[in-house]
């Protein structure tokens, strides 16, 4: 379970994020939507302790993220292409991340075979460095790497962007499978309202750093969101 308490982030005089309290129970699929500058990536960066909160704290499964590093063992993430090491091949990258996440060679092999469909034959054995893969294929690598080593929390920023339609559908299946046993908490942000309503049980709308909607997903959610954003 993740608990976000009184978290705010200020750059100079500009406050980019100010959240009173959000509790994300274990196993929830949590969606974050909002226009550019709403604070989605800032929140994710705070969750990963990549930036320091101005006030408040985030507790990830009983670990205060900016006090201890223990959350790293059970949290997988992919924010953007700066999470990839451009001069490695996908295989080498998976080996590296797998190594860090306590997997051995055989574990990594087994893990990757599960994603054959998702990779669509475009990732493994192509003799290409990550830096020469297309944006969409880079994203596939990043997303899969975030799921290595049985994480309890998976954080994905804009996972649907740049993916082709087939892969988008496969990614939705993947996220649903990940959360079906209510063991893995998945946090995703997206600009695509229909994708996010389809895979997330709960959707939080941010606007200029503030929480404006906290919805338990239902049949009407997509419509509600569309009318909210079509101002």
């Amino acid at each position, binding site marked *: 379970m993740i608990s976000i308490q009184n978290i705010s982030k200020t750059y100079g005089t500009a406050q980019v994020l100010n959240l009173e309290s959000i509790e994300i129970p274990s196993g929830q699929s949590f969606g974050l939507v909002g226009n550019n500058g709403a604070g989605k990536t800032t929140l994710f960066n705070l969750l990963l302790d990549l*930036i*320091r909160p101005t006030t408040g704290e985030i507790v990830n499964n009983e670990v205060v993220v900016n006090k201890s590093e223990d959350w790293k063992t059970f949290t997988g993430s992919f924010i953007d292409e700066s999470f990839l090491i451009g*001069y490695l091949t996908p295989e080498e990258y998976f080996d590296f991340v797998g190594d860090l996440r306590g997997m051995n060679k055989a574990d990594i092999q087994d893990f990757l075979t599960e994603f054959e469909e998702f990779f669509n034959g475009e990732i493994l054995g192509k003799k290409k460095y990550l830096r020469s893969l297309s944006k969409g294929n880079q994203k596939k690598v990043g997303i899969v790497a975030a799921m290595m080593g049985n994480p309890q929390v998976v954080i994905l920023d804009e996972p649907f962007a740049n993916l082709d339609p087939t892969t988008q559908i496969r990614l939705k299946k993947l996220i649903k499978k990940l959360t079906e046993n209510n063991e893995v908490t998945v946090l995703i942000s997206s600009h695509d309202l229909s994708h996010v309503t389809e895979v997330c049980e709960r959707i939080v709308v941010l606007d200029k750093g503030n929480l404006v909607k906290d919805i338990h997903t239902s049949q009407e959610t997509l419509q509600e969101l569309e009318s909210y954003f079509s101002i």
Partner: protein
Amino acid sequence: MGFFALYMLASFLMIGLGGYFFIKKEYPNTDPLFFVNGIIIFLLVADLIFRYLMQKLPVLNIKPFLGLPIRKEKLVHFVLGKSAFSFFNFMPLFFYIPFSIVLIGQGYNTIGVIGWLFLMITLVLSANYLNFLINKNNYALGIMVAVLALLFLVNKYEIFNITEFFAPVFQSVYSNPILALLGVLLLTGLYYLNFKLLRSKVYLDDVIKSKEEVASTTDLSFIDSLGDVAPFIKNDIRQIWRNKRTKTVFFMSFLFLFYGAIFFGQEMYREKMPAFLVFAAIFITGGFTLNYGQFIPAWDSEYYKMLMSQNIRYRKFLESKWYLMVVVSAGLYLLSIPYLYFYGLDIFLMITAGAIFNIGFNSLFLLFAGAFNKKRIDLNKSGFSNYQGTSATQFLIIIPIMGVPMFLFWIFNKFVGFNSGVLAIAITGAIALVFKNYFMNRIEKRYIKNKYAAIHAFSQKS
């Protein structure tokens, strides 16, 4: 890298200013200009080889321009014109221009000297464009090296006197400056060939095609036996090998191996300023440690965020860099053994002390200084004359790295003796090595403290 470029410019300037008088002194019976004219052919071929190895092709990201109403001819002229202002074209001028000024000052015919200088400039620019035509063609490199070797050997064994053959050719430009226009002819011809070649390539096809890069994977599993550090060492090796800038740093460290030859042969340093020999001795085995170490951890800036969100111990990440610096320094030390034969035991002891100092003190000190590096480095930008990542830190660190051993040697050599001076450097290095774990702990803490600042700085693309 900036250091190297400045060093080259300064050296050329010195030769340009002092060359005339040096030749006059060494060969009183020869006209210095005639002498230079004799060896110019060697300089030209050497320049081509140097360019081939170091100069990057003039590139312009043409993609954004293809859709705009700009004539393709104009784009090509722009790319070719821009390349005329390359560092590699200015470097020889640092020799030719001062040399010409000295010649005029010594009473040579002004018009003649200007004609000669003009020809030299056109030849330098011709070399620039010739390089693009032959660029990245390995046969061309082979031919150039063979030509240079052949010219040298033929000349040395007096089968055919090259210098005597070419000296009057270039000399004739001095006596008949109008001949300098031949250089313009050559330059125009080469420019035209480049233009035709490039003009036919201004299509998106070539832009896309050039991006295809086949990954060459090497099995590094033997490193796994090193335990926890292994994944990082594997990454670092791949990083060095697969990125232009790091690769340049790696190869440059072998050039520094020859650095001592400049100093050790000169009696002046041996007798009057032995502390400067320490400077050279540190460089011989320290080329890699200094050039690579000064940018830790900026080498990993492209994916620093990812490293910081992974379950890694900072210690292992840093230790991997330390291993690399130590292993390469030790390797360079083995390669420096010939110094023993050429310059004697004293010099070799100095190199040994320098190696111990590099391994013990400098590698740890550079890791420590790295915690203050706040400039991003994009790995795949070219290595030569690339200053990205350089800041005041790089200039400040030179003080302890060079100053400490030079000072230690100077003090002990002055008041006790040569051997104790060498020993002082070695012992300082050894002490640092013994307390490595203590220092590593301190360094790790410093990095953790600077974590947010580093993440922020490394995500700033300039």
